[in-house]
């Protein structure tokens, strides 16, 4: 497809201190075997995009390790392929970038030298399945400067902190854009995905350099809502916005409800690709008892697991009961332990006989590599 993909791996890591303390948002594990970046990457690959870059800011080791050459997304190509941009200094721009526009300024050379007609910008904090071909077609039809993908959904002020709210006229042209407002009710909520003509993006970046604009949401969307033709493309279907530990937990466990698994993983758009690992199939023992759970490969389950997400290479010991919990890869839960509403980060261990309780609106988080 005639489009360049730009994925921002950590525009939001300030809001997810626990999960993103040592990794980029894009590298946060999700859904048993994925990381958040797999969803935008797979959307792009499934839409036929074969040239894209990932802009990352800090703690990008696990992200780079995950993406590697891009071959697991079929992006290890002679033409196009994938490129990761860690922070680097250009001219007077030193230190970390301070916003989406600031980040784009630094990869202007890459954008300018690309031959593609369109650019798709996407973040990693929103999980959904979309075919960008449809968005680009719509973008052409509306002759818009910027096409923003949104969903019409109900939000409450507990989880509205990191959302961009659009107001559209009858033609779906944006007439008001609010960035991170505190609000309730049904709104047109942005999915942090924008389509532009590449030439237009370049002109935006030149303008931003001249005016020292740094933030795309405030300085372009909100400030220029009337002067630019910003149109909304409505998405309908499964979506999850991960912007806090709580929403991470709810959306993870939420996969086990309402047919969400088949909506996300068996959609018409295509499969979700991820880094392949050579894990063995998962082994269940004589006393294992698993209900309504998603279990990745390489696990050994000897105990009871209910309403939980179990990542790759996890061991659950005998007589242990894990409920409503998320156990990330390489977690080891010993024998006779009880866990309810717990998130254990990667390589965490819970030793024998421990009883750990969180609550559904306040899950208890166990850090990477820690031993309880």
């Amino acid at each position, binding site marked *: 497809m005639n489009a360049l993909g730009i994925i921002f791996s950590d525009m939001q890591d300030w809001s997810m201190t626990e999960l993103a303390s040592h990794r980029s948002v894009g590298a946060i594990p999700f*859904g*048993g*075997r994925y990381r958040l970046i797999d969803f935008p990457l797979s959307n792009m690959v499934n839409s036929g995009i074969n040239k894209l870059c990932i802009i990352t800011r800090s703690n990008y080791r696990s992200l780079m390790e995950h993406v590697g050459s891009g*071959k697991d997304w079929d992006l290890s190509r002679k033409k196009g392929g994938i490129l990761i941009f860690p922070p680097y200094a250009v001219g007077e721009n030193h230190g970390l970038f301070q916003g989406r526009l600031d980040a784009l300024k630094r990869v202007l050379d890459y954008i300018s030298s690309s031959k593609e007609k369109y650019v798709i910008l996407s973040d990693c904090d929103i999980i959904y399945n979309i075919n960008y071909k449809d968005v680009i077609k719509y973008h052409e039809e509306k002759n818009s400067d910027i096409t923003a993908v949104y969903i019409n959904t109900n939000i409450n002020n507990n989880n509205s902190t990191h959302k961009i709210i659009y107001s559209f006229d009858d033609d779906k042209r944006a007439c008001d854009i609010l960035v991170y407002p505190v609000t309730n009710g049904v709104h047109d909520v942005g999915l942090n995905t924008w389509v532009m003509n590449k030439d237009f993006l370049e002109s935006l970046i030149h303008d931003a350099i001249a005016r020292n604009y740094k933030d795309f949401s405030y300085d372009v969307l909100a400030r220029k809502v009337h002067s630019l033709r910003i149109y909304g493309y409505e998405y309908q279907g499964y979506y999850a916005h991960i912007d806090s530990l709580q929403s991470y937990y709810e959306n993870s466990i939420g996969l086990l409800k309402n047919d969400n*698994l088949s909506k*996300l*993983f*068996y959609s018409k758009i295509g*499969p*979700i*690709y*991820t880094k*392949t690992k*050579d894990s*063995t*199939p*998962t*082994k*269940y*023992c*004589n*006393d*294992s*008892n*698993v*209900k*309504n*759970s*998603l*279990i*990745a*490969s*390489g696990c050994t389950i000897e105990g009871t697991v209910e309403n939980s*997400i*179990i990542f790759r290479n996890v061991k659950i010991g005998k007589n242990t009961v894990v409920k409503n919990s998320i156990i990330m890869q390489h977690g080891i839960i010993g024998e006779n332990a009880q866990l309810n509403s717990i998130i254990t980060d990667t390589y965490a261990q819970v030793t024998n006989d421990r009883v750990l309780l969180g609550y559904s609106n306040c899950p208890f988080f166990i850090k990477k590599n820690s031993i309880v």
Partner: protein
Amino acid sequence: MKLTKKECVVMLLAGGQGSRLGDLTKKIAKPSVPFGGKYRIIDFTLSNCVNSGLDTIGVLTQYQPLVLNSYIGDGKSWDLDRMYGGIQILPPYQGMGDSEWYSGTANAIFQNMDYIDQYAPEYVLVLSGDHIYKMDYSLMIKFHKEKDADCTISVIDVPLKEASRFGILNADSEGKIIDFEEKPKKPRSTKASMGIYVFNWQKLKKYLSLDDNNPNSSKDFGKDVIPLMLSSNEKLYSYEFKGYWKDVGTIDSLWEANMDLLGCNGFDLSGDWVIYSRHTEMPPQYLSENSKVRNSIVSEGAVIYGTVENSIIFSGVKIGENAVIRDSVIMADVEIKENSIINNSIIDEMVVIGPKLKIGTPKDLNLGITVIPRESIINSMKEEE
């Protein structure tokens, strides 16, 4: 120096039909028969090679190679997409003179001497792609060098009553082979050849040519080449392998090898000696509220609503509400619809069964394994009373 030189080239015999696997090998060669939830039989040999540091592998194909060829692809699943060497499929080909199918294991190598020569190796490791085991071939090659042997044959102790199924050899205390009999009626030892040979390449070349000129030869390593080398007083040694090794040439042994993956005392797939395989992009497995899974292994993308006991469930398998799977091997992308009962069976890939059907007979009755061939759709059948 020639960049392409390799100390050891592997020749993997993957052309056999495996006729004793019946319907399972009707459309595919035996090495590509699925095994253990996510693997194919050839994965074990290929992974052993890579883990042993061997990266130049010729795969000799003949019978129904389509699935095998596309499965292997460029070899990247086993890290065998290399600048030099890597994996190469070697089908029979037409030459200037006589063209022929591979008439035996030795003839298959004989016809591909040019492939081996381009790497100018000291040694050639000949393997067959139809066994389940984990083995470090580099130790065997080291042994071969230490003994200054011309040929080293890997052997494993088998029960005496089974010995007449194998090539049986006798060796002295140093491991030097005294005699070798292919499938003897009255075996004189329990040291069975595993069909794994290390040859000095120049010696092997000589004997392959000699054997090719013998009109009475069946062009087989076990029947012809090894006896010829022995009678010519070459130095043949036996290398003892200890560990799990299973020939999966029959329906029963294939079923047993799968069952050996269950419990704690059989064959462990995990550990540092990783068995690589080609991936399918599937989400994690989902076990529903009413599912019961006991003593089984289950692969990615499986969706289980029913009961699974003592079974191997491959990727993408769907098992409906109240369906019961016992003592069975359910291969990839099979759908067992609700209220169906599967006992003691091997269900090949992409089969659809049910609803409300019974396949197989309970294991206790000892009536043997039921096999349902690839892509069958069974939705009506007289229900067994």
